[in-house]
């Protein structure tokens, strides 16, 4: 029993019931525990469970049957699966590269300039992240609009690029920039605080030894922030794999059949927003189940790799 703290208020020594001992904790933890169970724990199990059923709105969600691994077989044999896997890989790799490189670049530059200027630019880079996704998507949709409306056309015209409707003609480039500018802020913030915590002496010593800016970045800054970089790489690739909100708001998988459909959007379309009218929840759950498993595995890895045990030491003082 947890009665061995440095301070004890309870005088009677009769062993209280488990329930009485923990009643206060249960009271405090109750609401959070219920929400976590109902909206995380149960959904994870439900996703896995439903992936082995044929549950769909066509059968009114109630007349479902266990169908074994039929959903998974259907996914792996599907004629669009290859394309969607390819799209997903392109999407994650392109946006991840953009996010990490630009995040690192902005972090390095903003700590390099005067503090106020650096702060201003970091705030601007955070804007896409804190703006409603719909408004952000609206701005890009408009910027990429065909002539005479879009501004992207105006900026590339001096370089001899023919005006076009970027979202339709170059959907992947559009998606890269759309998602890239949102996602770079995470890396920027983490890298900035990591760089600022590097002892100033190291830089001073390097400068005295005659190192130039590039050498300092390459040989001192980047090696010293390799853990934050690894963290952002792993975290960001997982969240990109699961994310589809900005694609949904713009190309919505198009133009044309599945041109920019990524795995998570495919699951969403299949189970929650099918144009065919029938929501194939079971099939969509099988698609999502793969993402859920990846999510659990990667989160668990992050937890272990970034020293969970240091973060959860027992409370110092206990009052029972």
């Amino acid at each position, binding site marked *: 029993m947890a009665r061995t703290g440095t301070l004890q208020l309870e005088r009677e020594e009769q062993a209280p019931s488990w329930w009485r001992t923990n009643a206060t904790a249960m009271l405090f933890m109750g609401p959070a525990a219920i929400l976590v169970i109902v909206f995380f724990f149960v959904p994870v199990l439900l996703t896995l469970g439903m992936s082995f059923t044929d549950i769909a709105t066509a059968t009114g969600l109630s007349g479902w049957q266990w169908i074994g691994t039929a959903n998974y077989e259907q996914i792996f044999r599907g004629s669009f699966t290859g394309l969607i896997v390819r799209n997903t890989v392109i999407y994650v790799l392109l946006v991840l590269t953009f996010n990490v490189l630009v995040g690192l670049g902005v972090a390095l530059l903003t700590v390099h300039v005067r503090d106020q200027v650096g702060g201003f630019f970091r705030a601007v880079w955070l804007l896409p992240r804190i703006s409603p*996704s719909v408004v952000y998507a609206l701005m890009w949709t408009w910027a990429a609009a065909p002539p005479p409306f879009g501004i992207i056309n105006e900026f590339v015209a001096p370089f001899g690029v023919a005006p076009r409707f970027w979202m339709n003609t170059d959907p992947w480039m559009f998606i890269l920039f759309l998602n890239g500018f949102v996602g770079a802020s995470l890396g920027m*913030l983490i890298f900035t605080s990591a*760089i*600022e915590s590097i002892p100033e002496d190291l830089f001073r010593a390097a400068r005295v030894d005659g190192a130039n800016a590039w050498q*300092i970045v390459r040989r001192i800054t980047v090696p010293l922030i390799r853990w934050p970089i690894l963290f952002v790489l792993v975290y960001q690739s997982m969240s990109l*794999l699961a994310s589809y909100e900005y694609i*949904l708001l713009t190309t919505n998988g198009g133009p044309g059949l599945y041109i920019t459909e990524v795995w998570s959007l495919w699951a969403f379309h299949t189970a929650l927003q099918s144009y065919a009218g029938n929501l194939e*929840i079971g099939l969509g759950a099988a698609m999502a189940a793969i993402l859920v498993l990846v999510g659990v595995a990667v989160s668990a890895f992050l937890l272990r790799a970034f020293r969970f045990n240091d973060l*959860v030491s027992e409370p110092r003082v206990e009052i029972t």
Partner: protein
Amino acid sequence: MAAIARPLPRSGGVSWTSAIPYAVLLLFTLPILILYGWLIYGSFFPSMQGLRPVGGFTLENWRFLWAPETVEALRFKPPIIPLTINTFIFALSTALVVLLISSMAGYALSRIRFPGRRTFLGGVLLLHSFPSVTLLIATFIILRQLRLYDQLVGVILVKTAFELPFGVWIMKGFFDNVSWDLEMAALVDGASRLRTWWQVVMPLVKPGLLALGLLAFVSGWNEFLLPFVFMPSGTQQTLSVVLRAILNEGRFVDYGLLTAVGLYYVAPILLVFFFAQDRLMKVYAGGVKG
């Protein structure tokens, strides 16, 4: 701090190379500045062709506020003011529930030893990076079973749950930094744990509550996917869903209206961000280090 490669002071004045980082930074950031500048600018002109306004300065685009019946694109849409109120209710309720539940759980995790504490803390940390968006399909079924589908309450609960891992973790951090002395005195004097938490400890973490509350509010105000998926019928609709509907139907038709509604929708966020930027940035930066 903040000087990776600042040139050593030289006798010959400022070197021209010190301007390079500013220029590069500006160049990289230009797309964002242009997008937002253009959203603001475009909302005050009848229409825009690229960067050039067509026609003179006008407030026509903003007439959705005082004469919504004259706006073609809004004809079959719920009126903007009730939509704004719905969005506000959604964001505020989410923020308040997140604050209450996170600070209760955060307090227990910070101060009380109980069976399952480590497990729960580990779970919270795990969920902190877990992409909750992958659970929407199962959540759809759960909301239907709970008879909360197509209701604002259901969406608020889901949103709260999704914000919770972050909130609990942040609040635990704030409670960890509060000294035990006052609390101990209150407990020795015979106050209950619940009372001590509410009357003694909560006032001490006000900065944390404010920061988390603002973040949760902003996140709720911006939310698109949850109301879009879980509240399709429209009586309690929020701004994001309706703006998306206009965007989908009226491509390139009335961008003046779209920019005005978009700016109207994002303006409160920009104001909050402008005034509470440092506070928010700190929580963002601290929040992901977990």
